[in-house]
């Protein structure tokens, strides 16, 4: 099967590149081994501020609503961090004194939302907190034997969020703010906004343990947009090998399509970092498994990590080597039609930012290069 561009990895970076190329009239495919880091997404696009025009247009066409201003945001364990570009359901506050009194509401039996840590954190800023648990018959199902995870609750909430609002109205005393877990608006994206309008207090949605509901929603919206533009999404398939001749890759082989190769003029590697298996490691080396690209890391394994576990770990920053245009490099030679984007770059290109900012900026940079070619 032949395409203009084949993208390996269907995370944020791969999907942004895919959408931008399809929009420009290119014919692309995305091959993705599994789901991606958006499933752990906080809702904040690290290292980005106001979106530029084209990112704003891309998000808006996909139905993703974002906002930014200077300030701080509330983290799942009750601490605060500097704000960055965020999904609309993530609040940005001028400072950490976000309220006078807060009612924190959790669901009975749901262990992935840390209400007491949140209370402790908020109390440090002189905010009075009260924690209440909601028990809804509609959720008893989820509790019985299976796992009660954010997504299961969110699926019910798309239907019964109004009941939750009623219950919270009864619970509210003199609190000016309600903190709820991020389990709203998985398929019906208007729900968080409607909850905000229906309560007489400010509503703040705080992060849960994965899976991330706002993240999965974003992933669904991007994938839908990509497919609507005619992109071919090969979900659950793994790129295993590239066929290269004199610095040019002609096709890749995948696990599911075995001898049916995916051919293209250019290839984008967006397979993520160690976490997503875009990079692999063993006691001797850190490698890139599909093309065998050069990975930027020290020889001596003792330098890969910091024995103080909680400190920043050097291996988190490792990535594949590229030239300034993000062409991938193999055994010192630049591959002419292979580009690397997203977290597989590690922090080899600090000028492009970090986290989701890196994914998006590097994706657009490569799309520009590809579209500028003849």
């Amino acid at each position, binding site marked *: *099967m032949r395409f203009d561009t084949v993208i390996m990895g269907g995370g944020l970076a791969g999907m942004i590149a895919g959408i931008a190329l399809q929009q420009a009239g290119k014919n692309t495919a995305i091959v993705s*081994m*599994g*789901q*991606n880091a958006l*499933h*752990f997404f906080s809702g904040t696009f690290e290292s980005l501020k106001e979106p530029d025009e084209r990112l704003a247009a891309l998000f808006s066409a996909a139905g993703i609503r974002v906002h930014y201003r200077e300030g701080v945001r509330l983290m799942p364990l009750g601490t605060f961090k500097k704000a960055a570009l965020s999904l609309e359901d993530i609040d940005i506050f001028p400072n950490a004194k976000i309220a006078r009194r807060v009612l924190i509401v959790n669901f009975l039996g749901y262990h992935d939302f840390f209400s007491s840590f949140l209370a402790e954190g908020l109390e440090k800023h002189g905010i009075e907190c009260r924690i209440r648990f909601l028990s809804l018959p509609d959720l*008893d*199902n*989820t*509790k*019985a*034997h*299976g*796992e009660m*995870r954010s*997504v*299961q609750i969110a*699926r019910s909430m798309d239907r019964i969020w109004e009941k939750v609002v009623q219950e919270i109205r009864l619970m509210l005393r003199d609190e000016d703010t309600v903190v709820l877990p991020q389990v709203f608006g998985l398929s019906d994206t208007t729900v968080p906004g409607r909850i905000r309008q229906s309560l007489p207090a400010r509503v703040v949605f705080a992060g849960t*343990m*994965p*899976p991330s509901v706002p993240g*999965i929603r974003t992933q669904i919206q991007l994938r*839908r947009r990509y*497919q609507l533009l005619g992109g*071919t999404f*090969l*979900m*659950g*398939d*793994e790129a295993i090998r590239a066929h290269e001749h004199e610095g040019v890759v002609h096709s890749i082989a*995948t*696990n*599911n*399509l*075995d*001898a*049916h190769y995916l051919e293209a003029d250019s290839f984008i590697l967006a397979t993520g970092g160690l*976490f*997503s*298996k875009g990079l692999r490691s*063993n*006691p*001797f080396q850190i490698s890139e498994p599909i093309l065998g690209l050069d990975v930027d890391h020290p020889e001596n394994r003792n330098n890969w990590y910091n024995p103080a576990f909680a400190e920043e770990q050097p291996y988190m920053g490792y990535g594949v080597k590229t030239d300034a245009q993000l062409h991938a490099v193999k055994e010192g030679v630049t591959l002419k039609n292979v580009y690397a984007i997203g977290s597989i770059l590690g922090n080899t290109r600090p000028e492009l930012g970090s986290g989701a900012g890196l994914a998006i900026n590097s994706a657009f940079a490569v799309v520009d290069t590809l579209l500028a070619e003849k």
Partner: protein
Amino acid sequence: MKLQEYTTSAHNFEECMKCTVCTAYCPVLQVNPLYPGPKQAGPDGERLRLKDPYFFNYALKYCLNCKRCEVACPSGVKVADLIQSARIKYDTHPPKLRDQMLASTDFMGKLARPFAPIVNAVTDLGVTKKTLDMVLDIDHRRTFPKYSGRSFEGWLKRRSKEQAAFPEQVAYFHGCYVNYNYPQLGKDLVKVLNALGVGVQLLDDEKCCGIAMIANGMAREAAKHAQHNVDVLGKAVSRGLKVVTTSSTCTLTMRDEYPELLKVDNSAVRDSLLMATRFIYEKLEQGATLKFRADYHKKVAYHTPCHLEKLGWGVFSERLLRMIPGVEFTMLASNCCGMSGTYGFKKENYEASQAIGAPLFEQIKAVNPDVVACDCETCKWQIEMSTGYPVMNPISILAEALE
């Protein structure tokens, strides 16, 4: 330091990083309070089961084996294989009569075919449905697949000379459904392949792929079928033939479940076994052409069956359908229909089965197509019963659109 090379585990279970992604994609976890979900039933449970089989949980039977957890897992854990292997290894309950009947699709087919009109009339009767419901726990709200009076095998045998005259040949694994319930699909395939200059042969006595047996606690019987089929496929392959199929589930079973779950080595035939859609697409890519009717027009909504999604070959069906000039194509969002073979027939699963499929049914109604396209026979029953829209295999749509 060979340590890491030697610690690969069955079904990759040690690769699990406990990220919970699979729990977001399991259709059963959402609707059935008794099911522990892919993570607990799969890699988490496996750690305990390896210590002591006491930890085997009979609720694992609620797993549909739809493989959606595997498609989603970022770490390559074969979650569904872990669950099904555990059922095979630890479930000592003999299957119920009903489950044995539902599992024995080719046996039931042979039995029912000569009496097809009677069987069809009888299984349609309210009384029969109530009785099946009461005696066998087969849900009375189900419509039964119809049995055809004449088998596909008989039809093709009568045409073997004419087929042998084509310059190129393939073998066709038709499966129970085409043989007993819906020979028309097989005939449609023959029409399309003939139009490409390819003649179709039967295999030398194929048996049911065995998926329903695996699902219903009859792994030993399934393994016998598997060995038989691998031998039969081997004969065709050694004559230089490719073997095509029209059922995504039979294909996934023979390619992947045989070695992974039933421990039957299929390496000699695996690469020669293809969905017909892939075979046809590849022929067209190599330069063959099909001539389509100028007056053909159909609004088609395509549903990718779970097992085809796992195979990763939905793209061939999609591309073929988009290629037909008069087809207005919509890709339906990825969602399990809830039927999963014999699962939805069982009374205890009816409600769950319908709840799982609900988003798909709603989307189909919203798109309002002329026909839903889908490569799976059990999805067809479920979607037709639940939405009222007709469902056709992409091969049948191709055949209909041919000049």
